[in-house]
């Protein structure tokens, strides 16, 4: 009995490991459609790649859907927008890009804080779409209240 176990255990482990690794290998080789956008990725290799839910091939999104048309960028004028608190575009301009698909009602049901922030704070203050998972998903109650007090604090 123990001899069988001693022999089969490493075999089983190797089969399992093979199974676990093979999808990862294929995922690394096949680039998501959104990351094949030559126009943008040529320069933004490091900071432009999308790995999150919004990069899903089925959604068929491009960089331009959110960031706007390239136009004269990078040398001349363009209406490209970036998503961060430090970016020149006003919060409501940034929010408008998200509201193209996400409607106010559904956002309100997902979390009440959307109702009172949407035109004052840009979405990127809490959400990030480029990384594989949005950091706001699964925050603990205490982390969440700390995020509130980052802005709301009495002097």
């Amino acid at each position, binding site marked *: 009995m123990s001899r069988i176990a001693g022999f089969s255990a490493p075999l089983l482990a190797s089969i399992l490991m093979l199974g676990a690794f093979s999808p990862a290998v294929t995922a690394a080789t096949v680039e998501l459609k959104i990351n094949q956008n030559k126009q943008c990725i040529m320069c933004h290799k490091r900071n432009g790649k999308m790995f999150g839910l919004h990069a899903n091939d089925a959604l068929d999104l491009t960089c331009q859907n959110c960031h706007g048309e390239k136009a004269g960028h990078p040398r001349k004028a363009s209406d490209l927008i970036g998503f961060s608190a430090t970016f020149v575009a006003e919060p409501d301009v940034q929010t408008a890009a998200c509201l193209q698909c996400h409607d*106010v009602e559904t956002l*309100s049901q997902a979390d*009440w804080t959307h*109702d*009172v922030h*949407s*035109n004052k704070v840009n979405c990127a203050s809490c959400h990030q779409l480029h990384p594989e998972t949005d950091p706001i998903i699964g925050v603990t*109650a*205490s982390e*969440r*209240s*700390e995020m*509130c*007090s980052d802005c*709301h*604090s*009495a002097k």
Partner: protein
Amino acid sequence: MKNSRRLFLKSACAVVVGASGYTIAKSSTETAVIDGKKYALVHDETKCIGCDACSVACREVNLVPEGVSRLKIEREGPYGEYPDQYFRFTRKSCQQCEDTPCVKVCPTGAAYKDPETGIVSVDAWKCVGCQYCIAACPYQVRFINPVTHAADKCDFCKETRLKEGRQPACVSACPTKALTFGDLKDPESNIVKVLKSAPNYRSKTELGTRPKVFRIASREGEVTL
């Protein structure tokens, strides 16, 4: 024969009068001796942002198990039309009544009002879990603690933070300083200053409970029936 009965009645009356006089005198001296603090709390609803920092801190400091809570912030809303919407936040926790329905119904004396601080507390070891207090509390803030199996509720951190000479956990956690804690008897205390500077209200005062949690009202929403 006749005389002795009269004597008996006379002396019996004298004893009764004397005894009642003694108990009245005793009780009046008792209330006079106790001259402690009267701790209270103000929740400024106009400053509250509903971040739950208070309830998170309460759970941590008082080791309140998951599934029950001593303090909750209740949210009503949204009121108004997008994008100009707002919410109302109200604090749900023990109101620290002066006239305590929970203490009155407690058969074992586990629920009591501390004469030194005026804080309503629970002696967990005396509680038999009959839940009379839970039924009697008009604010519905009491619960059976699944760990101690005794009735539990907010005690202004009497056993934790106040013992260390600090403010209750919720008060120090609040990022917008919406909570003010202090002694109502001290005219120089912050709480007295806050209460005198702003119109405030208390919940269900019509029941005669005389609660010691005061609220500064935020913008009202619509009336829901």
